[in-house]
């Protein structure tokens, strides 16, 4: 069990001081300092994993079947694990002594760089699965491309994550097909989930200056370059699922630049509460 400091004892200042002292190991060399765009890119990768991992973890104990419950919890843990690697590297490259925990727990919503898609509420099981599938199909293409990144640390993380995400995609695609091509009720829900989430998929493939810099440096692909493969995966799975591909229209954007839906604040309030209320608490 965690042993937490008692909030009624007036030693919070001392605790906060400790946290700063522990977080501030600035003697670590910062060979990558001066690469703000690289840090930005790494935060985008890490924040997608962190926020989606948190969302998926919300199903723990609530899934429609025990087997699904465990599968989703595993998937959430995979994503949180990947987040630790990406944010850990982000902190290292940033060189300001922030580790993955500091980035996850001590940034405010405006500093998060995840796609809007992954912060959307879970909705029903159909929305959760469809969101997972749409993201997995993007995530796998991104990781495959990152395996040949010019930065070996990025390539290494991508190689590890790719195996996990290949399974995520296999599973989410299979369930989308089963439910899309299932009963009238499940078909209706999956089609509704798709309609709801579709306007959030465009942001995955928007290129900006950060993406361009990463592509120029050979660190990462341009997101727009991943779209053709994503389109193919999505079209074939939705076809098999007897779901109609929504018409392309207006798309939400902003998450990659820190402009989020109102939902992210609630996620952070829950996720960050402990570290905010008891700075530096460990167990």
């Amino acid at each position: 069990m965690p042993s937490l400091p008692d909030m009624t004892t007036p030693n919070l200042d001392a605790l906060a001081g400790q946290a700063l002292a522990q977080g501030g190991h600035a003697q670590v060399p910062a060979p990558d300092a001066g690469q703000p765009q690289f840090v930005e890119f790494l935060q985008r990768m890490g924040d997608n994993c962190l926020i989606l991992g948190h969302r998926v973890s919300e199903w723990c104990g609530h899934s429609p079947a025990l087997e699904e419950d465990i599968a989703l919890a595993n998937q959430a843990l995979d994503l949180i694990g990947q987040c630790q690697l990406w944010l850990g590297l982000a902190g290292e490259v940033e060189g300001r002594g922030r580790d993955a925990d500091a980035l996850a727990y001590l940034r405010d919503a405006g500093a998060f760089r995840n796609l809007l898609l992954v912060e959307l509420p879970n909705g029903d099981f159909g929305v959760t699965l469809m969101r997972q599938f749409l993201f997995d199909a993007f995530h796998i293409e991104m990781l495959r491309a990152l395996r040949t990144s010019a930065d070996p640390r990025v390539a290494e993380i991508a190689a590890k994550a790719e195996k996990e995400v290949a399974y995520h995609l296999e599973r989410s695609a299979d369930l989308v097909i089963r439910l899309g091509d299932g009963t009238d009720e499940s078909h209706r829900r999956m089609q509704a989930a798709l309609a709801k989430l579709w306007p959030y998929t465009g942001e995955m493939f928007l290129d900006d200056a950060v993406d361009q810099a990463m592509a120029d440096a050979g660190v990462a692909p341009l997101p727009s370059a991943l779209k053709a493969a994503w389109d193919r995966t999505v079209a074939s799975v939705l076809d098999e699922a007897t779901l109609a591909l929504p018409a392309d229209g207006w798309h939400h954007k902003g998450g990659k630049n820190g402009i989020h839906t109102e939902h992210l604040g609630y996620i952070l309030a829950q996720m960050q509460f402990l570290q905010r209320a008891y700075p530096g608490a460990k167990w």
Partner: protein
Amino acid sequence: MSSEWPLWEIFIRGQHGLNHRHVGSLHAPDAEMAIRNARDVYTRRNEGVSIWVVRSNDITASSPSEKGPLYDPSNSKVYRHPTFYDIPDEVGHM
């Protein structure tokens, strides 16, 4: 919901080339998902390299009420245990 899914018995072969061992059971609509669920439920800690799933209904089990006739007769047949041989030292542990 899960009560509509049939029950499957799960067998996993561990890392060390041993036989598949029964590890438990779970619900799944078909064999493919049973394998997937087994992966998620029973191999989380790197337990296995191979999974078998069998519909529980397809297993024929001996009846507990026939325990006496089935097993008791072998109780008195100690000569079926290979304990009457002297094992040479160089053979080592068997």
